[in-house]
């Protein structure tokens, strides 16, 4: 199968959806000639023109409010916030508006929009450009939260996000835009709420998403050499979450390690532990382990930065503690 960069898979999804539905448009900062801060949109301005590739001033609140308003009135905006850290400037529009409108109006209105953004550490850009804030959005009823790791998943899930009738927070990771992965030529979409077992195993389930998926796969490779068989579970969408598939995996392996790059406190990992504890306690042969980012902001110095986030080694260590 042909291979595509993660960022080219994003572009392809946008192209297909824009060709399919004239109501789809892109809006955000530096998405015109610049093609987006991570160049996922390069060439799209030429292809679709400034009416469908709308380059905005640095006005996060108006970008997202603008997307909501257009969504309420018949369009399907894909709004880009350059860094997830900058969503902070527009939290009213995300949390009080986009997430609540359908609910508050008794389903009279709905908000078919996508908020595309990216997060994560690894580029030495310090505390205000490296956060993993998915738990904030996960916490808010009314938002769907998607965090694809591979080219295949990012394309299929973005297409689904654009067609979805509710607000979707679509979170990419800055370290994986140039990762290549197989993407079929034929059209496909991936439904929300369907996890993907990225590697089958029988001794322990490792729950990991976004960039941490790759750390988990590396850990599983190393552990296999020692005779430990890991099942690597990628939820792909955090809301809706494929709980049944997770429970099934735990039923098989009886052990669970949950990985998340975000600071541990109040993280997705914490909630996954709670869910599995509630629903599958009887199938567990040991405590669930979390491998998370430290409860610290992300520093500039590379050595310190790396110390703040999980690695293959920390995952291996956690697995061995419960095996």
């Amino acid at each position, binding site marked *: 199968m042909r291979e595509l960069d993660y960022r080219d898979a994003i572009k392809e999804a946008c192209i297909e959806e824009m060709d399919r539905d004239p109501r789809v448009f892109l809006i955000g*900062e*530096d998405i*015109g*000639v*610049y093609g987006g*801060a991570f160049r996922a949109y390069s060439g799209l301005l030429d292809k679709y023109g400034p009416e469908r590739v709308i*380059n*905005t*001033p*640095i*006005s*996060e*609140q*108006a970008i997202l409010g603008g997307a909501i308003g257009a969504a309420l009135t018949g369009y399907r905006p894909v709004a880009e916030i350059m860094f997830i*850290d*900058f969503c*902070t*400037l527009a939290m009213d529009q995300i949390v009080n508006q986009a997430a609540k409108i359908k609910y508050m109006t008794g389903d009279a209105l709905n908000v078919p929009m996508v908020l595309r953004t990216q997060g994560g550490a690894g*580029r*030495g*850009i*310090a*505390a*205000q*450009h490296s956060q993993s804030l998915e738990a904030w959005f996960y916490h808010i009823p009314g938002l769907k939260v998607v965090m694809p790791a591979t080219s295949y998943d990012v394309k299929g899930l973005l297409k689904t996000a654009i067609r979805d009738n509710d607000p979707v927070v679509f979170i990419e990771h800055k370290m994986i835009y140039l990762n290549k992965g197989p993407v079929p030529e034929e059209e496909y979409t991936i439904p929300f709420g369907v996890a993907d077992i990225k590697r089958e195993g029988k001794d322990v389930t490792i729950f990991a998403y976004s960039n941490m998926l790759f750390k988990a796969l590396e850990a599983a490779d190393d552990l296999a050499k020692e005779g430990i068989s890991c099942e690597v579970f990628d939820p792909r969408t955090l809301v809706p979450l494929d709980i049944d598939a997770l429970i099934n995996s735990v039923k098989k392996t009886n052990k669970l390690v949950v990985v998340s790059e975000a600071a541990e406190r109040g993280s997705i990992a914490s909630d996954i532990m709670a869910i599995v504890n509630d629903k599958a306690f009887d199938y567990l042969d040991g405590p669930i382990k979390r491998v998370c980012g*430290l*409860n*610290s*902001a992300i*520093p*500039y*110095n*590379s*050595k*310190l930065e790396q*110390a703040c986030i999980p690695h293959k080694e920390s995952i291996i260590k956690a697995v061995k503690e419960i095996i």
Partner: protein
Amino acid sequence: MEKLSKELQVLMLKKLIEIRRFEERTVQYYQRSKIWGYLHPYIGEEAVAVGACTAIKKEDYIISTHRGHGHAIAKGADLNKMMAELFGKATGYCKGRGGSMHIADTELGMLGANGIVGGGIPISVGAGLSCKMENKGRVILCFFGDGAANNGVFHESVNMSAMFKLPVIYICENNLYAISMCSRDSVAGNDIAGRAKGYGIPGYKVDGSDVIEVFETVEKAVDYARKGNGPSLIEASTYIFLGHHPNDPAAYRPKGEAEHEKSKRDCLTNFKTKLINEKIITEAQIDEIEKDTEKRIDAAVEFAESSPEPELEKFLSEVMS
């Protein structure tokens, strides 16, 4: 306005040179990966920081942006600590935690660079409040870009400080670009200084490549603020010589624009020529300043190179909460 003293003009020239050479050096080290992450060179815009910071006192405050080295140096920052921070070292201004976008120095009243565009604008309101409450005549210079002027925080902040008559001098560095977005295409009305009218405060448009014009205008606004009259808004038109960051070829700009600006509006070249023409300084004296500056930057690099990395244990004990 009384004529500027020769000493003050030479001092401003020294600062312009210091910032220019420091920035050139950081670009070199960025290209050699000694400095990493994001680096936003201030080259071409030095006259704004130098003119503005020369118009205030040591005890006054400034607050800066992601493109903040020039502001820090103009306020008197220590080159050693700056370079060490850019090298990620324990001896840097932020103990290696912040890098280029977060340099701050409380002793100098430098309240920090900022990775969030517009992030410093509302903070200046609070600093202005404390200046007012303290009643010692202190002021704060709030630097921000044309891009930042389009964020909602600009309106909230200027309105509030105007209502409360806070001693804040808003200095918008309109360098024509916010990454790829030209301010002509993003600022409705293309007149940031003109917004002052709506807030009932003084607004000034200055040539940001003319260090004297910047100085004189900021001095006027500072005087106005110290007398308790409240904020002013100054728009300094300037030009960003390099791309948004060292690896940005700035392909989105019209051909020839950068060359034109560099040849006509290089604040450093123009000021050197002016001072030589007015016989305030000789070429030989400028050479001396250049040499001395290079030496001090060499020393800063040496300091940064030889400084220790931050210790992980210490870092963890300080930051985990």
